[in-house]
C-alpha cells in the first residue's frame, strides 16, 4: 500500500517536473527593471553644472530644423505616385484629421501584426494608398514629412498604449533595452537607468524619461536633423554592437518601449540636442 503510494508519487513528480522547469524558465525571462539612478530634474541640474548653459542659449536662438516643417507641409500636399493622391487627399488640406494622432504612436497595428511608427506608416501610405515609392529612411523628405505629421500633435500629452496586443511587443522592446550587447557588454538600461547622471568621460548619461518626446531632432553633432532610430544606431555603435536597420521590428518595439516611458509628457518636435 505504502509502496504503491510512493510509486504514484514518484511518477507524478516525474510528470510534473517539466512544468516546474518551464515555470522557472518563464520567471527567468522576466526582466527586473533597475531603479533609475536620478530623476530628470536632477539630471538637468547636473547637466547645467557640468556643461553650463550654452546649449540652452543656442536652443533659444532657434532650431534649424524648424525650417523643415514648411518643406514637410509642402510634401504633405504634393501629389505622388500612380493614383494621383497626396497625403492631404486623405488627411485634410492642413492635416486636420491627423491632429493628436502622433501622440498615440507607436501603436499596435493588426494589419502588420506588430508595432507601427509614424515614419513607417508614411511609407505604408505611399506604397499602399498612393502607388508611390517608399521614402528612404533618414532622407530629407522622410524626416520632413515625419516632422510635419508629428508637429500636428505638438503640445499634446504622449499617450501610447501597451495594453492588449501591444503588450508582448512592449515586453520585447524592454527586453532589448535590458540586453547586454557588443564587446563592451553594455545595455541601454545600464547607461540610461542604472548609471544615469553619471559621466563616461565627458558624456553625461540622461535618464530615459524624455528620450522619445522630441524626435526628429536637430543634433549639433550631426549638423542636421535625424530620427530617434538614428540615435539608437549611434548608441549601438558606441557599444561596439552591430546597429540594426531603420524601422526593423526590434527598433519599432524599442521605440514603443521608450515612448511609453515618456507617456504624459507633451510631444515637442523638432527637438534640439548636442
Amino acid at each position, binding site marked *: 500500500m505504502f509502496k504503491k503510494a510512493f510509486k504514484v508519487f514518484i511518477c507524478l513528480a516525474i510528470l510534473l517536473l517539466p512544468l516546474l522547469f518551464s515555470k522557472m524558465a518563464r520567471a527567468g525571462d522576466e526582466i527586473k527593471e533597475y531603479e533609475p539612478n536620478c530623476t530628470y530634474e536632477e539630471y538637468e541640474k547636473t547637466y547645467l553644472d557640468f556643461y553650463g548653459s550654452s546649449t540652452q542659449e543656442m536652443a533659444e536662438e532657434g532650431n534649424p530644423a524648424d525650417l523643415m516643417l514648411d518643406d514637410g507641409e509642402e510634401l504633405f500636399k504634393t501629389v505622388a505616385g500612380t493614383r494621383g493622391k497626396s497625403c492631404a487627399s486623405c488627411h485634410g488640406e492642413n492635416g486636420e484629421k491627423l491632429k493628436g494622432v502622433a501622440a498615440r504612436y507607436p501603436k499596435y497595428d493588426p494589419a502588420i501584426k506588430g508595432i507601427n511608427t509614424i515614419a513607417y506608416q508614411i511609407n505604408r501610405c505611399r506604397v499602399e494608398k498612393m502607388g508611390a515609392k517608399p521614402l528612404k529612411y533618414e532622407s530629407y523628405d522622410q524626416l520632413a514629412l515625419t516632422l510635419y505629421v508629428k508637429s500636428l500633435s505638438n503640445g499634446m500629452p504622449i499617450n501610447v498604449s501597451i495594453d492588449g496586443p501591444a503588450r508582448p511587443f512592449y515586453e520585447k522592446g524592454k527586453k532589448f533595452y535590458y540586453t547586454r550587447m557588443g*564587446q*563592451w*557588454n553594455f545595455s541601454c538600461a*545600464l*547607461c540610461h537607468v542604472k*548609471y544615469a547622471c*553619471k559621466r*563616461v568621460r565627458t558624456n553625461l548619461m540622461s535618464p530615459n524619461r524624455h528620450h522619445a518626446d522630441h524626435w526628429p531632432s536637430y543634433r549639433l553633432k550631426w549638423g542636421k536633423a535625424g530620427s530617434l532610430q538614428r540615435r539608437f544606431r549611434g548608441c549601438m555603435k558606441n557599444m561596439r554592437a552591430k546597429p540594426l536597420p531603420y524601422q526593423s521590428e526590434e527598433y519599432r518595439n524599442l521605440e514603443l518601449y521608450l515612448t511609453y516611458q515618456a507617456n504624459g509628457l507633451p510631444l515637442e518636435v523638432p527637438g534640439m540636442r548636442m
Partner: protein
Amino acid sequence: MPRKRGLSGGVFFVTILMVVSLIGGFSYASSKVEEGRKIATTRKLGNCVSCHFLPNIESPGNAGPNLVESMKNYTEADRDIVRQWIEDPRQFNPDTLMPPFGANKILTKEQIDAVVEYLYSLKGVK
C-alpha cells in the same frame, strides 16, 4: 690566498649579478607600470579613465570609483582580486557597467598584467 681571491671574485660576481638583476627588475617593473598607464588612459585600449579617476587626466569620467582611493583598500595579497575585477567584474556585481576586459578579449592577459602593475603603483599617490 688564491682561495680567498677566488671567493672575493665569486662575491664580486654574485654582487654584480644581483645589482644587474635588481636594476633589470626595477626597469622591467617600471616599464610595465608605464605600459599599464598607457593602456588605462588610451581610448582605443583600456580607456579606464572614461569611468574612473586616475592621476593627471583631464576630465576623467565618474561612473566608477576613484581608483587612487580604491587601491588604498587593496594589499599586495589582493593582486588576484584586482586582476579579477579587470578580467570580468560581473563576478562581483552582475549588473555592473564595467566591461569584462579579459572575458570579452578587449585586453590580453599581458595587458591586464601591466594594468594591475600600474594600479599598484598608485598606492604611493597622495
